[in-house]
């Protein structure tokens, strides 16, 4: 985790094959350096003559809790990758949810849920107040030229 001295970076480079092969290449940065906002992915699927389908993950209704956490990490960890990788994965997310609802067009948004401050809570605020959510568009996707996947879309989403 930057910043690091060239000595440490060299040591990391030398130990990298061993660490990666044995799945030991972790920094254990739990809620570090600062606990930040949680990240969610929302999607909107337009339908002709009908209300759009909206959804968001992670969804607290997902059970068991471990599966909910897996979806939570899909949203949280996405921004840890480089742009090119992230775009590929965003496209995969979009295709998955479009297939799930058997639609071809979908738009994704990144939603940041900012934790309320102590003062705000003391003043009567709530954690899920609308003003605590910030949405940022990821992009719109059109899969009409692609064949639908025949796989099951069962599950929590």
């Amino acid at each position, binding site marked *: *985790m930057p910043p690091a001295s060239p000595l440490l970076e060299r040591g990391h480079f030398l130990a990298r094959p061993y660490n990666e092969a044995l799945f030991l290449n972790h920094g254990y940065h739990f809620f570090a350096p600062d606990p930040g906002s949680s990240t969610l992915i929302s999607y909107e699927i337009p339908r002709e003559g009908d209300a759009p389908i909206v959804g968001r993950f992670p969804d607290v209704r997902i059970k068991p809790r471990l599966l909910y956490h897996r979806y939570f990490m*899909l949203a949280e960890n996405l921004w840890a990758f480089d742009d090119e990788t992230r775009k590929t994965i965003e496209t995969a997310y979009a295709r998955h949810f479009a297939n799930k609802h058997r639609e071809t067009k979908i738009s994704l948004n990144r939603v940041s849920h900012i934790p309320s401050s102590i003062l705000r809570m003391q003043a009567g605020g709530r954690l899920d107040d609308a003003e605590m959510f910030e949405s940022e568009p990821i992009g719109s996707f059109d899969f009409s030229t692609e064949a639908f996947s025949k*796989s099951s879309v069962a599950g929590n989403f």
Partner: protein
Amino acid sequence: MRLRSANGSVLNRGFSYIAGAASSVLNAWHGFWFQPLDPLMIGLIRLLTGWMLLYNLLVWGLDLDAFFSDHGLQPLSSIKSLHDGDPIFSFWLWTGDQWLWPMHCACLTIAAMFFLGIASRVTSVLSFLITISYSQRVPIANFGFDQVLGFLCLYLSLAPSGACFSIDAIIRRWWRRRHGRSVDVLPSSSARMVSRLIQLHLCAIYLWAGFAKLKGPSWWTGEAMWRVIANQEYQTMDLTWMAHVPWLPYLIAHVTIAWEVFFIVLVWQPRWRPLMLLMGVLMHVGIGAFLGMWTFGLIMAFAYLAFSDPDLWRSRLNRLVRRAPVESTMALAAADSASNIVTASAETSIPRTSPAPFSLSVASTCEEAADVSDLPIEESPYENEFLDLNFDSPLETSEIAGFPGAEPALVAFNSPEVLPESAVANIGFESGESWFEGEESLLVNDVDDAELQFSRETTVSTAAVGIVESTVQDDDSAEMFEQAFQMATPAVPIAEPDVEANSELIPELGLPSCTDMEMASKARTAPETEAAPETTSTEPGHKAGKVTASVCVVAADTADRTAIRRYLRGHEFSCVALPSIDDALTSISRHRFDAVVVHSCGLSTREVVGFCEDVADLTGHPVVVLLRASQLVAIDHLSQIRGVSWIVLPASLKEIRQQIESVVAMSCRSSLQTVTESKPC
């Protein structure tokens, strides 16, 4: 110019110092990493980790297509490009969608086998490969739980994780019992190594986690913990009331930082370890309860078991198991057999007039008696490292409450005060009966019990600690005096053969009397003789022939004591077997023996070394110590005591006998040499 001092060159002393320091460091390193350790906790960690792995795979199966298929949330092409060039392993990278479910079911089966401890050596390695394969295939969905699961599976694949709490262990015990072999779980160096790896890995986790937090200003201001509490996506329990008690989240933040940063130092301090581990457990339980990450919280807490003392938990487990009525099932391996292995697993097959209240699996007895934790000989950093911090387990008189005839004796002995062992031992002497008369009543069982007819009215109670004494009454006597003593191991009534009914056999029984032993010993050590005279003993209990040496055997456990005594007597040794080192010192100070054998089962390292030192100071008898594998640290001390040799258990009776013969021969030679040198030409 040469530097010289009165004691030799300074350089030589310097080199000696460096060599000594290097030797100490190497010994400490070896002891830290490879001193054999009971794999009990490793087995428990395997059980719990296997459960977590199985649960993890079951949850993946709820949405397997979404996470692992090529058209799911993490396409294979994207993940492959992500890992491009990285030396990772994941069989999912080469698994097509059509094999998704067959592979997943196979992994579930292996995880279940790992959890249950079936073919542990194989399934532990496979479980590690499964863990990293799943994690590497879906890296975006990983979090701390996968990281901890990964390293635990890695280390468990290096250890005898199936030695305890496993189907493998059950099968092994059944097979060994069937072949009359020891069912002991032997300490293992790899168990120690893996335990250390887990301990150090936990230290590394907390250290890096703490350092990473120190980079964030919110952990310095204390605001970080509130941010975690107020994160609704993590929250499973509403803690927002802390906004009205703001000092509380600030305090938790500061304590968390301090605890993580100093964990690596304080967890190795015996007095701090319980507190550090307790705080860790509370933190991880809190993570599970308030942030919904039960899997992460629990698996971290499970890893803490690596810091536990397996000997302590073994003794507690044995005590728990012994509460159920268990019949003695193991026959004493033939003391005549030279290949009989003395560990702590032989059990006497002496028929009892009443069922023994406890199973005398000697391993359990050994651990029960050794509930007193090993006090360090010196302030070794590795002796007091466990949670159990030097307490003396109180002798539990309640264990003998249900013992036949115990109630009156209990009243007698518990009133007015609980008697110390020495006082109990003195009772026998005050009763007017000599020690060896009392001992004779014990030693009568040198003939197979099946050949004797037992009188139900005459019983002798034996206790593993304190006096082994009970007045044998005639059948006509109305009074039967049966004592139950405070004991580290329970008393077992042994039926004494009826003299009249067994009159044909009794003359063949018998014992070397004190006088005979003294004569044999004196003859053995007579300085005027070049060769030790071999006294012929027609005393029963020995094969007709010569008594080669007299030996005092000290063993707390009845089965071990009986096994060694029978074997030695069957090989022309005059043998006295005593249950405690105090009794042995008393006997040794009064009578001459050629050698003393002390079984370390039931004795702490300090007691063993102290006994050897006492013998060396008092009489100089050569001592052979039967040392447990977990007491190898005592070797350094024993090697400095004159006349002491040791055998590390498990060892055969033949090896013990050969060691005794060797020790006796050396002692004779040194005595002769001393006499020769002192005798004028």
